């Protein structure tokens, strides 16, 4: 068992869990933050992307114990004072989601892109999102949403 100390969505968390607890399991099962999804268990699909110390990371293949004391942001932590993050707003406006399952990972990944590249081209967006699979949208409106957000952020 390992004691995990994290800042999750601005809240200090201290919990003792088995050593092999994945970050996705820790968030979903121990903190009930079920917005982070697991779609493949092998870091291929990107549904599980969260931010760890501001960088996007696939939580389904990260041990919670490996990121001790980190600052974690999940999809649940993006809203500020009841207002959605500009990326969330843009996904809604541009119809960048359908079934919603890949969406949390997609949004978290896209936010990280705009941190690194404020004004990405279509190709740069498509290239960056290569690690996130969406089966519903054909990606076109996701690209449009990221562009829309880049004009707002």
């Amino acid at each position: 068992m390992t004691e995990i100390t994290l800042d999750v969505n601005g809240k200090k968390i201290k919990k003792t869990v088995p050593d092999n607890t994945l970050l996705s399991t820790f968030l979903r099962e121990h903190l009930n933050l079920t917005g982070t999804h697991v779609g493949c268990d092998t870091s291929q699909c990107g549904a599980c992307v969260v931010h760890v110390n501001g960088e996007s990371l696939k939580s389904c293949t990260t041990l919670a114990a490996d990121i001790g004391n980190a600052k974690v942001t999940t999809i649940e932590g993006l809203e500020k004072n009841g207002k959605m993050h500009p990326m969330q707003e843009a996904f809604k406006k541009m119809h960048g989601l359908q079934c919603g399952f890949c969406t949390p990972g997609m949004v978290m990944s896209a936010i990280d892109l705009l941190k690194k590249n404020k004004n990405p081209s279509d190709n740069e967006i498509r290239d960056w999102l290569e690690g996130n699979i969406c089966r519903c949208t054909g990606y076109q409106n996701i690209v449009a949403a990221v562009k829309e957000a880049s004009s707002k952020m």
Partner: protein
Amino acid sequence: MASLVGSRVERKEDKRFLTGKGRYTADINLANQTYAIFIRSPHARAQIKKLDISKASKAPGVVSILTGNEIAGDKIGGLIAGWAIRSEDGTEMKCPANPPLAKDSVNFVGDPIAIVIAESLEEAKLAAEMVKVDYKVLKAVTSTSDAMKGDTIHEGIEKNLCFDWLLGDRQKVKEAFDKADKVISIDIINNRLVPNAMEPRACVADYNSGSDEITLYTTSQNPHLSRLIMSAFGNVAPEHKLRVVAPDVGGGFGSKINVYNEDIVCSWAAKKINRAIKWVAERSESFLTDIHGRDHVTHAELAVTKDGKFLGFKNETIANLGAYARVFGTVTPTYLFGPCATGVYEIPAAYSNVKAVFTNTAPVDAYRGAGRPEATYTIERLVEKAAMELGIDRTEIRKKNFPTTFPFKQTLVHTVDSGDYVAGLDKAKQMADYDGFESRKKESESRGKLRGIGVTSYFEACGIAPSAAVMSLGCGVGLWESAEVRFNPTGQVTVYTGSHSHGQSHQTTFAQIAADELGVPMENIDIVHGDTDKGTFGMGTYGSRSLTVGGIAIVNACKKIVEKGKRVAAKMLEASPDEVDFKDGEFVVAKSNKKKTIGEVAFALYLPGSRDSDFKSPLPEGEEPGLKETSFFDPANFSFPAGSHIAEVEIDPDTGEVKLEKYTACDDFGRIVNPMIVEGQVHGGLAQGIGQALYENAEYDETGQLMTGSYMDYTMPRADNFPEFNIGYTCTHATTNPLGVKGCGEAGAIAAPPTVMNAVIDALGGQEITMPATAEKVWKACKSMKKSNAKAA
């Protein structure tokens, strides 16, 4: 009030998905729940000699291990084929039993044989490792084309043949072929695909011993149908003691139509152990056990005159059903495939003959488009080849054979109510700058690249479907849909639909429709679905039926609400009902300013009296209080979306890489309720269709092991695989429903594979190549092209 139908309205469901508040099955945890792991066959075909659970049963945390013996002992039924198909010789199809847990033999890798239930997932996994199974491994049958020559998989099903089905007239076709100037023939493979909804299947089953009720939360596209099958055929519980809830479902594409082994086993086992059981598939389990799609081997011929008129069409197909026939398994390669194989053309004589075979692979069933992508691929590859061989422009040969008047009596089954195929193709050509292709080709060639263009004109029969028609074709149920519209006393509306949304945006589209019908603001309308305890029985979502069937049930229920409202408003306004008009949410007495809002009328219906009115009711005599109406809509016909798509590819002959440069889709979906949502449906369908053409392939080796069982091996299309799609529409309203809608969910997956492949093959100078057109295959084709060019020189 402006009409909402036709408007780009943002989705009501989005906020919860975007803020992590969606509630998918795997997010559900019940008090005191246990966790399940399924023991699955590692062999494609084997006899179970011995199953030893003694050590595993004593492992820490194990609650119970249940096997095929117990489930058979409890007389729990298996999985079923939903459609009974007859062979050409009149005999009924032959299907094997498909027990939820295999007892004596296993027939594909992943076939479940036992369930291990433990206090934690970890403990269930560890105990599962201790279950010992002795198999006698048998030779597997995996090849679609050779299945009839293989060992008999299921006792009594000779040649592994489920049925040998014929639609059409062989003699007429022979006569047509005798008159032909030329016969174009083609051999094609429609590659096997894995649907790959991003949410893996899952279920949580709960049992309440006090009420003897089972509740199953599951990833289903049709909870009511699941309950019916589990109750009537699975013998899990009577329908009134079984509640099936499909909460937010993360994509289906057909793969979540079926009731699966795990649904039945967990529901039955929850009652047995008197505790809740949770099971969530890992992705590798999804690959192995979700239904797969397509997997046809086809030989087709088209008889033509030298100026390009089509005279006759033959379609000889072997369809792989996998190990067992499931809900839509037998209809997908027959009535959903055969009739559409003559495409958008007037062909005087045609037949489709399909031999459906069992193999030791995962069951094959309906995947987005179901039968119609296979049909469209067959005819559109053939027509493209005919154009090439006859030296006629690919669009001209199509136009020459389009029907020009509607209704169009299609050769084999359907009477297509409306359409304008010429207008669709012309618009697609214009959108794609078809006439500018030659100069783009020259430009590509100047850089040493090959460029090709491909066209597809398609129609599809969807909006399934008229109950009498489908039941006469062997469907086990009628395919109507239900809706219930309830006014709350304070004026908001709840709409219960039997359809299920797993990405289709029903919460928005259906609210738009109801808002227009009732004159109630959209934000005051809630759409409820996915729970057998809420609303009437419904048939669910597949076959692009939600709007064309389910949506119309909502319209009709709303119309009943308005009719009742009119009678009550008339009494309240001291007029006769035929003097009352309803518009924009108000009942107005003609030629007066007397009116009541629908909210006021609803309020009066729930509170029919007042303190000061001397027992006078605002309701007409005999009128029941309350405002709630139900409709069951059974369409008069299928609906028939159609369109033309054009793709352009550029191939690097040095690497074989195919780059999809342009993709144009011009579709006729009839009236469009929400253009934003329809566009999204088209994009998604295209991505899956292009995925089939260029990337995706499910492949078994000869021992029946799935070689493409993870995202490392199965190429899922990613964002950087696609260009920006160019989407447009023509519009002819469907005449068979009051909204004039046709359905849009499957079009992209139907039209894209032949469109892209026609372009690839055009770039390769007509060399046939199978899907997916991977770099390796294309590179080889480029090499042989170079060789034959050198020889010719």
